[in-house]
């Protein structure tokens, strides 16, 4: 999209541009992965936004970890803490529920997205809540809570600046930490000017000044915090031993969401539990430094009970909704279990060269980037989300950046194997073991054509004679190679085979093909 000088635009022209962006977004989400990726690659302002964000965030994180050895030790501890949680997950969740309940926090469990939304709706209804302010929460994006509640006449207002902008634009977050990172300053200015309304009903004046933009949103939100019937937030860590919900944020909106309204509903994936407070500092250190390159966030909320008698502030009721939504299936999978180690810092997407080029919306899922490629097919199934699995060069930058050492490239490869597994998933079938040790939609991406290609490839490469014949044909016929070869030659020249293969050259040089039996070759030379 070309940058149009804003001075020349009237408010209605700006509104038309904003509408167009909304339409383009909706249109893009209708398409397949490849088409979405292509649209993103062709959008120059989008590419500039993501590449700029990647450079900025990678640099900031790097500056936070000047000592590599210290970083590696910290990652070891982070990984151990998360693995400890997963190794004791059922027991820790029980303990968490017991201690939260003792603290006066009501705990609910939801197996999938729909029951989770129903549960939250019921709590809101029971309290006659019609307006909700939301702190930033990816799990509520995952279960599409806003949509569910809005359809039932409950107003949900996102209070994180990025989420607020995305909601105004009628889009979804393009990054799990910076939801509106795909928008530039001018786009945000137009959005605020044409779609936001001040508390007194007046229009928000057009401004590209960042402080002014934030000031305007802040004023609008402040009013909502004071009047909302309920606040809904996410959870970064749930401490089992003390029954405490930890929430990390920078804008104070999390504090407002969880303290100003009478009712607070926290929503969390079941994997966010940690055993003890002693494990929190390491995870917090890793989270904020990896996510935004901060030593600590401006706010760190620890919620351990509703308002007690005699206290002035705080909600009268606090609820925690623990959402499974495919997580116990990940938990039961031999190799994909580390998926649940994730602390949602976003470092993997910041370091991913594919994400940096196509951005978050191209993935068409709540979670984009490498962790999105691992989580999404496991939650939503391979049939619907398996196409994103090929959008990875297995370069390993994500695995290297992950603060809790999730072997992301390995998991992506593992999911590719699941996607083409000949032993297809029959969820309705009898074997529990199969259901629990396979991914939803296993084998959904297996095609006859690709299977045949790999069978042929295997045949050529497991028979040395056949392989040598093929390489000879390739070198002898190198002048006959086609000038074009699919996607490769659209942006590259056709590589030309050498006149003689290394097999031939080595033979001509008289190199032995195998050591002489009995010759002691393991001894050292010189």
């Amino acid at each position, binding site marked *: 999209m070309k940058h149009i000088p804003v001075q020349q635009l009237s408010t209605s022209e700006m509104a038309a541009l904003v509408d167009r962006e909304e339409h383009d977004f909706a249109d893009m989400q209708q398409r397949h992965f490849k088409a979405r*990726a*292509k649209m993103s*690659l062709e959008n120059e302002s989008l590419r500039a936004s993501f590449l700029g964000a990647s450079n900025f965030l990678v640099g900031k994180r790097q500056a936070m970890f000047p000592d*590599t050895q210290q970083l*590696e030790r910290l990652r070891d501890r982070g990984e151990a803490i998360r693995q400890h949680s997963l190794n004791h997950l059922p027991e820790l969740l029980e303990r968490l529920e017991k201690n939260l309940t003792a603290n006066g926090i009501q705990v609910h469990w939801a197996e999938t997205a729909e029951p989770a939304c129903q549960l939250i709706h019921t709590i809101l209804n029971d309290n006659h809540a019609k307006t909700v302010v939301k702190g930033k929460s990816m799990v509520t994006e995952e279960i599409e809570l806003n949509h569910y509640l809005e359809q039932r006449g409950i107003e949900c207002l996102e209070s994180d600046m990025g989420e607020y902008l995305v909601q105004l634009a009628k889009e979804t977050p393009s990054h799990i930490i910076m939801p509106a990172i795909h928008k530039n300053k001018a786009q945000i200015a137009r959005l605020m000017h044409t779609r936001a309304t001040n508390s007194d009903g007046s229009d928000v004046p057009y401004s590209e000044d960042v402080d002014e933009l934030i000031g305007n949103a802040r004023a609008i939100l402040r009013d909502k915090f004071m009047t909302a019937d309920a606040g809904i937030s996410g959870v970064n860590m749930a401490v089992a031993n003390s029954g405490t919900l930890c929430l990390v944020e920078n804008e104070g909106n999390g504090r407002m969401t969880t303290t100003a309204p009478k009712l607070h509903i926290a929503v969390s994936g079941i994997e966010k539990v940690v055993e003890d407070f002693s494990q929190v500092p390491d995870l917090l250190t890793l989270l904020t430094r990896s996510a935004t390159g901060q030593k600590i966030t401006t706010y760190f909320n620890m919620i351990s009970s509703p308002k007690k008698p005699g206290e002035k502030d705080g909600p009268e009721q606090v609820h925690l909704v623990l959402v499974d939504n495919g997580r116990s299936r990940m938990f039961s999978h031999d190799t994909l279990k580390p998926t649940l180690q994730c602390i949602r810092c976003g470092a993997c997407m910041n370091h991913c*060269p*594919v994400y940096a*080029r196509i951005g978050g919306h191209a993935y068409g899922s709540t979670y984009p980037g490498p962790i999105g490629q691992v989580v999404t097919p496991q939650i939503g199934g391979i049939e619907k989300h398996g196409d994103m699995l*090929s*959008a990875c*060069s*297995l*370069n*390993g*930058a994500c*695995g*290297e950046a*992950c603060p809790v*050492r999730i*072997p992301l*490239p*390995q998991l*992506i*490869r593992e*999911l590719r*194997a699941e996607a083409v*597994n000949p032993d297809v998933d029959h969820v309705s079938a009898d074997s529990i073991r199969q259901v629990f040790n396979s991914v939803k939609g296993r084998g959904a991406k297996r095609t006859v054509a690709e299977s045949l290609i*790999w069978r042929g*490839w*295997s045949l*050529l*490469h*497991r028979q*040395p004679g056949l*392989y040598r014949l093929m*390489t000879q044909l*390739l070198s002898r016929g190198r002048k006959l190679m086609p000038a074009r070869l*699919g*996607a*490769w030659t*659209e*942006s*590259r020249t056709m*590589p030309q085979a*050498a006149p003689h*293969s*290394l*097999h031939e050259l*080595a*033979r001509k*040089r008289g*190199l*032995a*093909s*195998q050591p002489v039996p009995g010759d002691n*070759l*393991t001894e*050292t*030379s*010189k």
Partner: protein
Amino acid sequence: MSSDNRDTGPRSARHYPARPKAVYLLGTCLVDSFYPQAGMDAISLLEREGVEVIFPQQQTCCGQPAYNSGYDEQARQVARQQLAAFAADIPVVVMMGSCAAMLHHDYPRLFAGEPEEAQARALAGRSYEFSEFMVNVLQLELTDNSRQPLTVALHTSCSARRSMRVAEQHKALLSSLSGVQLVEPQRATECCGFGGTFAVKQGDISAAMAKDKADNMAATGADMIVSGDCGCLMNIAGTLEKQGRAMPAKHLATLLWERSQ
């Protein structure tokens, strides 16, 4: 071609054996057909060091393309052929970082629970990336015998950097050539967009990455691109050539041999 490495950061240093009398050379299928001179130059370097080079004519491909695509059974069938071809207990010098990573990291996983598991583990333990073997096992010392000054833009592949962790070895070998000046491209640690079947399955994304890498390489103004992985070389050099700004591109072994003769 990039390996799907499981490793997510340095943990422990690898233990290296004493200088052996003989080694196997695993050429890799890309070097075999497209960069055979790189293999021959590595052989010359090894022989000059007094190491006998054994080149199994039975070797084909490490199996990585199928493995990275999720076709484990086909990958295993081809990998079995390499287990047989490199059966003797001597080090295996691998001409590309990604194939070295396939042998060193992925074979034990590919054969986990299979009858060949122990064999695969043994092969993994004695497989070395070319520069790793030259630096860590042979402690190679080179004399630059070329009078021609040369600026080189080094592209260390992702698997060489992150799976085999030999980025320093690449630099050390090039730095030991007195007439060679190394120039660091922008975003040097980023993937060039090759990724094996990724370049075919996601052609648009791959091309966008390759274009950015080509821009960064061209911007260095270097005389030559050098890499230890031929997939990256093919990708970067092919992109530059298509854009009409071709740059010479060589495997690390070739430059080392040419200048130290």
